[in-house]
């Protein structure tokens, strides 16, 4: 597979062109690391202003979508130690959390002194959603550039169950551990009104309802949630405006009692289902669902190109993939 000579984006990646020197259009359009640093500083200030506006208005300053993976653990550490926020950590248990991750979550929330809740939906419902979205993508085509359809399903459920919880508890902010490569810094603080959120929710909820029926409704907001909230919580992903160095992150979270679980990839250290989603995605679309993220890491200088190339190959563990298919009941 041919890759961009500058980052690691593969030839054939949607919407991307390559010039005669083999450099992709994202690298050509990239304004340089100093511009990126300027944006990070600007968004840090915006985030700090948002914290000032919302501080002390609720028992919790922020609800952290805490998967137990390395990035959300590091984000939780930043929210507690750097910003001193009162955090409610929220874990959506999709049925594929490694055993070690439960230990990691307990160690980390205890070390950082935060309250924590698990939300474990009926596995029969999520199983139907995952099984379907392993083979079909009912979401906007653009989402396939950032994640596999099965990951988008899970993220949609995380996002709206977290939003529902935050509205019910009147928490003004919801934080995610998205890395700088997963979403641009310019989208790192998202404040939207009820009308827009409701329209976006429907774009995720409607296809899910077609797949799994009415029970899906309970994972989403009801009219009363929109009516009760004068303003909906803002979504933030602080790693987009924070220095991202995987080695430093791993060293930091190790001190909190976090250890890398077995059978997971470095791209998703919290989920056993990920390799199956990756395999299906590569088979169907011809590129790794983490290619865009890793390419951005290389462009931004968060990792070297050889390191990026090492992150990309799909490690085909037949025993693991077979056990995942068995749990989902797919051939």
């Amino acid at each position, binding site marked *: 597979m041919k890759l961009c000579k500058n980052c690691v984006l593969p030839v054939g990646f949607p*919407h991307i062109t390559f010039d005669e020197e083999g450099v992709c259009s994202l690298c050509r359009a990239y304004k340089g690391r100093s511009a990126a640093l300027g944006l990070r500083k600007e968004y840090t200030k915006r985030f700090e202003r948002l914290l000032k506006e919302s501080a002390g208005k609720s028992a919790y300053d922020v609800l952290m979508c805490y998967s137990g993976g390395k990035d959300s653990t590091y984000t939780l550490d930043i929210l507690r130690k750097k910003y001193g926020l009162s955090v409610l950590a929220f874990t959506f248990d999709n049925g594929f959390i490694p055993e070690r991750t439960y230990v990691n979550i307990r160690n980390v929330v205890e070390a950082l002194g935060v309250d924590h809740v698990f939300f474990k939906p009926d596995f029969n419902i999520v199983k139907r959603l995952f099984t379907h979205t392993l083979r079909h993508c009912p979401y906007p085509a*653009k989402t396939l550039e950032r994640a596999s359809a099965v990951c988008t399903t899970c993220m949609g459920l995380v996002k709206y169950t977290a939003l529902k919880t935050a509205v019910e508890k009147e928490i003004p902010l919801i934080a995610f551990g998205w890395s700088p490569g997963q979403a641009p810094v*310019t989208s790192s603080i998202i404040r939207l009104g009820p009308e827009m959120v409701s*329209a*976006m929710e429907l774009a995720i909820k409607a296809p899910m309802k077609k797949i799994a029926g009415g029970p899906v409704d309970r994972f989403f907001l009801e009219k009363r949630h929109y009516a009760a909230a004068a303003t909906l919580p803002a*979504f933030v992903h602080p790693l987009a405006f924070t220095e991202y160095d995987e080695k430093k992150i791993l060293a930091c979270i190790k001190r909190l009692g976090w250890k890398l679980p077995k059978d997971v990839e470095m791209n998703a250290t919290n989920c056993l289902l990920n390799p199956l989603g990756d395999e299906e995605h590569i088979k169907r679309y011809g590129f790794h669902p983490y290619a865009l993220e890793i390419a951005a890491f290389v462009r931004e200088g968060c990792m070297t190109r050889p390191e990026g190339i090492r992150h990309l190959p799909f490690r085909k563990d037949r025993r693991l993939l077979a056990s995942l298919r068995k749990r989902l009941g797919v051939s």
Partner: protein
Amino acid sequence: MKIPQGSIKSRMKDFIVRTYLGRKDAPLGDGDSFLGEGIIDSIGVIELVAFIQETYNIKIAVPEIIPANLDTLDNLERFIIRKLSGL
């Protein structure tokens, strides 16, 4: 600021098609819903807002980020003209 008739819509269409649909000849009707048709998601909305602010040097407030202003090419054109007119 004098904007030629139709130029806002064609500029917005170019951005949406180039960024989210990938092909220049991809069909996109003036009344097609970006959210309803699954063309953009939440990150896409923020990118779209940033693009409009930068392109037309206007400030868009949170209460203005609503489907009635941003969800179709027709809505975008009306909204941007209104903003440029200072209404």
